[in-house]
C-alpha cells in the first residue's frame, strides 16, 4: 500500500473495485472471473476470516502465476472445512498430508517440479497458526534455511479453533481460550510468551517476509503478487479474525482485522533479506480498547470487574509496535493532491 500513489476516486483506493477504474487498476477480487480458489459450500463458520484470507491470497497467486499453482495444506480449520470426503471446495491443485509436515511436503513438490523442468509451476504452502508456529515450525524453519522455492502463507487466527479454541503460540496475552481460562490474578493467556513468527522468519534472512490482514485487500494482493515475482523461500503472515474463537460478531470480521492494524497490535509491514523495507502506516489511530471490546475473549477485562491494568499492558504492546516499525507518520490521514484529479479526466 505504501508503494502506491494515493489516487483520488470516489472511494479512494480502499474499496475492492470501482466502476471508474480500468480493469488493471482493480483488485483481483473485483474480477468476476477470479479463480475463486475456495468455492462456495465450504463449511467454515459464518464470517470466517480464514476462508476469506485464503481466497484473497490464492486468487492473487493464481493471477500472478498465470494459473499454474500447486498448494500444500497443513491440517487445521482450512483443511477440515474445505474437504469433507468426498467433497472439496478447492479449485486449485491441492495436497494435504499431515499437521506438521506441510512445509516439508511443499519442499518436495518444488523439488519434483524442478526435476521435471516445470519452473513455471509455483508452489504455495499454507497453514493456520497452529500448523505454522507450533506443530509445523521445525519443517518450516528447515524450508527457510534451505531457501526452497516455496511461498508459505500462515493464516493466523491466534489459536486452535477447529478443535475447540485452544491456545497456540500465536495466541495474544490476556486472551481467553479453552486452555487459558479467564480466572485468577492473571486471567487469560500469559504475557511474555508466544512466538512472533514474521520476525523469526526474517531472522532466516529469506528473500521476502510480509504481514497483512483481510481488512486491506489492495495491500494483501500486492504482497502476494510481489512474492510471486521472487524465487526461494518466502513467507506471508495474514491476520484472519475468527468469529467463533474470538467471540466477535460474524459481520465484524473485517472491522476487527482493521482495528488490529489501526491500533498497532498487529503491525503490517514487508521485509526483504531480513530488513524491513516498508510499513503500512496507521490511517486512523485507535486505542486498543476499541479493538478488545469487540471480542468476548477479552470480556473479562471489562464489565463488572474490569482490569484496566491489563488493557494498559496491551496498549503498551501496541505502542511498542508503533515505535518499532514507525507505524504513525505525518500522513496518517492521506490527503490527495489536486493534480491527481487530472489523470482521471480521460
Amino acid at each position, binding site marked *: 500500500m505504501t508503494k502506491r500513489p494515493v489516487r483520488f476516486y470516489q472511494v479512494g483506493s480502499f474499496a475492492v473495485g470501482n466502476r471508474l477504474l480500468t480493469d488493471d487498476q482493480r483488485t483481483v477480487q*473485483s474480477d*468476476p472471473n477470479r479463480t475463486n480458489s475456495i468455492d*462456495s*459450500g465450504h463449511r467454515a463458520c459464518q464470517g470466517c476470516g480464514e476462508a476469506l484470507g485464503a481466497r484473497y491470497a490464492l486468487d492473487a497467486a493464481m493471477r500472478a502465476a498465470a494459473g499454474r499453482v500447486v498448494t500444500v495444506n497443513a491440517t487445521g480449520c482450512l483443511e477440515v472445512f474445505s474437504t469433507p470426503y468426498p467433497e472439496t471446495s478447492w479449485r486449485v491443485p491441492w495436497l494435504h498430508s499431515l499437521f506438521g509436515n506441510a512445509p516439508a511436503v511443499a519442499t518436495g513438490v518444488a523439488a519434483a517440479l524442478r526435476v521435471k523442468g516445470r519452473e513455471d509451476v509455483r508452489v504455495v504452502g499454507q497453514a493456520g497458526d497452529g500448523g505454522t508456529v507450533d506443530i509445523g515450525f521445525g519443517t518450516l524453519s528447515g524450508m527457510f534455511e534451505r531457501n526452497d522455492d516455496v511461498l508459505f502463507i500462515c493464516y493466523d487466527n491466534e489459536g486452535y479453533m477447529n478443535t475447540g479454541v485452544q491456545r497456540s503460540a500465536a495466541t495474544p496475552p490476556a486472551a481467553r481460550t479453552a486452555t487459558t481460562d479467564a480466572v485468577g490474578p492473571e486471567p487469560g493467556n500469559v504475557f511474555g510468551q508466544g512466538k512472533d513468527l514474521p520476525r523469526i522468519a526474517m531472522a532466516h534472512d529469506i528473500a521476502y517476509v510480509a504481514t497483512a490482514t483481510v481488512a486491506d485487500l489492495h495491500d494483501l494482493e500486492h504482497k502476494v503478487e510481489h512474492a510471486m515475482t521472487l524465487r526461494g523461500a518466502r513467507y506471508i503472515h495474514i491476520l484472519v479474525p475468527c468469529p467463533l474463537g474470538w467471540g466477535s460478531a*460474524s*459481520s465484524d470480521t473485517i472491522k476487527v482485522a482493521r482495528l488490529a492494524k489501526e491500533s498497532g497490535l498487529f503491525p503490517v509491514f514487508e521485509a526483504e533479506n531480513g530488513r524491513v523495507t516498508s510499513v503500512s502506516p496507521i490511517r486512523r489511530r485507535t486505542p486498543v480498547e476499541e479493538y478488545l471490546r469487540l471480542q468476548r475473549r477479552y470480556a473479562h477485562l471489562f464489565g463488572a470487574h474490569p482490569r484496566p491494568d491489563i488493557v494498559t499492558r496491551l496498549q503498551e504492546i501496541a505502542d511498542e509496535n508503533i515505535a518499532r516499525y514507525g507505524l504513525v507518520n505525518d500522513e496518517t490521514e492521506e490527503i490527495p493532491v489536486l493534480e491527481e484529479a487530472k489523470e482521471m479526466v480521460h
Partner: protein
Amino acid sequence: METPFGITLDVGSSRANHTGSWRVERPVYVDRLPPCNDACPAGENIQGWLYHAESGDYESAWRALVEENPLPAIMGRVCFHPCETACNRVRVDDAVGINAVERFLGDLAIERGWTLPEPGADTGKRILVVGSGPAGLSATYHLRRLGHAVHLVDSSHQLGGMMRYGIPAYRLPRDVLDAEIARILAMGVEVTLDHVVDDVEQERRDGSYDAVFLAVGAQIGHRVSIPAGDSSRVVDAVTFLHQVADDDPPLLGRRVVVYGGGDTAFDAARTARRLGATDAVIVYRRNREHMPANEEEFAQALGEGVTMRWLSTVNRFEGERLVLEKMRLNEAGFPEPTGELEELDADALVLALGQDTDLSLLERAPGVVIRDGVVEVAPTMMTGDAGVFAGGDAVPADRTATVAVGHGKHAARSIDDYVNGRVREAVARHELASFDRLNTWYYSDAPRTRRPELEKIRRQDTFDEVVQGLTEENALFEARRCLSCGNCFECDNCFGVCPDNAVIKLGGGERYEIDYDFCKGCGICVSECPCGAIEMVPEKI
C-alpha cells in the same frame, strides 16, 4: 470413473452443500434516500446526476438534472444549497460542492446547446401560468412535458420575475437567465408580457383555461413608517433593484444606509456599492447569529466593503442625518429598545424589511383563503378555488428561488392530475441514508474545491459575476467526492468481502445479486458496504 484403492466415492464439489440453509438473516440490497435529495426544495435527484458526472458523462448528468429542474445554470448560482448543508460528507471533511457542479453542468449545456426533452403529446388542455419567475417557468416546463398547452403571462416587460428584477446581475448574469428561459420557450409556449391579471376567474373564463397556476411572487417592498424630513430619500429595496435591472438606477448619493438583515438587504447594499456609494451600511436590529441572510452572501458583501451596524433600528431620518436607536436582545432573542440614540450620516435610506404579495387578483375567487398576506394551498398546491393553483413567494413557504422551482414542478403534476380527474397516491419515501449507515473507511479524504471569486477591487464597481465557475477537471474531482449515500455505486466491496462467494457481480450498472443458496448470512457485506445500500432482514421461518 475408476477410483483408486480404498476410495469408494468420486470427488464432488462442495457446491453440493447449500450453506444457505444456515442463515437466519438475509442481506438485501436497498436504495436509501440521500440527505441531499431529501433536502432539495426542487426535488432534484442530486446523487443520481452526480453519478453520471463522476464518469465524465456530463450530458447524461444534465439530462438527469433537468428531469426535475429546468434551470440548472441559474440554480447553480442563486440557490442557497440546502443540499450541501445536509451532505453527509460534512462529517468526513467538507460538503460536496453540489451547487458548483450544478452550475458547471448548466453552463456546459448552454455552451453546447443541449435542448430540453421534447414536449409531451398534445392533450388539448390549456393552462394559464401567471408570473414568469422560477415557479412560473418551472411549472411551464413541466406542463409542456406533460403535453398541456401553456399560456405564460407576466406584468413586466421581460420574463424572469425576481430572477431578473430582484437578483443583481453580479450574482446572475442576464445572458445565463435569457438562455435558460429561451430553452423553455423553445418547447412551444404562448407568452404575453406587460399584462396584469386583475381577476383570475374572469381571466380563466375569457381564455377558457382548464386550470390556472399563480406564481405572482412578492413584488411589493414592505413599508414601515419612519419619520423623514425628505421622503424622496427613502426607497424600498425591491423598487431600487427593479430600477437597476431596468437600467434606470435612482441617484442615492455616496452614503447609503440599508435597513434590514435578509438577502435583499445585502443585494441592495452590494448594488449601491457598485453604483458608486463610498459607504454602504447595513442597519440590522438583531445580531449576526439571528440574521437571516445567507452566510456566503454576507461574507462576499463584507469583502466588498459593506459595513454592518448590529443591534440598531432606524428611529428617524433628518436631512442628511439618520438617527439610530440601539437595541439589546432579551432572553428569547428578541430585540428590545434601550432608548440610547446615535447618529449616522446618510444620503439615502433603503428599506429591505421584507416583501408583500399583491393578491388582489384573487379577491373575487370563491373559496380562497388568504392568511398573513399569502394564499393558503392544499398539499397539491391547489387554492380553495378548484382548478386554481399557486406557488412560489405567494404561498406560505421559504421564499427562495429553489423552493419556487419545486412548487412549479409539484403544481404542474397536480394540475395534470386535476385536468385528467385523477387522484395521486402518495409514494412512500425511501428511508434516509443517514451518516451512521456509511462505512467511511473506504472514502479517501479530499478537500473541497473552492470556486474562485472575482478580485475584490473589480467587483466594487462592476456588475461582473462575482463567483466564477469550476473548470472541467475541478468539477469532475468535486463530483467524485460524492459518497453516493444509500445507493450502490458498484465499488465491488460486497463481491470481494463475502467469505462464501455468495455475491454475484452483474456489472455494467446492473449491480449485484446475492446467491441465497450459499449465503450464510454473516453480514460482512452489510458492514463493509461504504454507502449503506445493503440491509439485513430476518428470514421468514
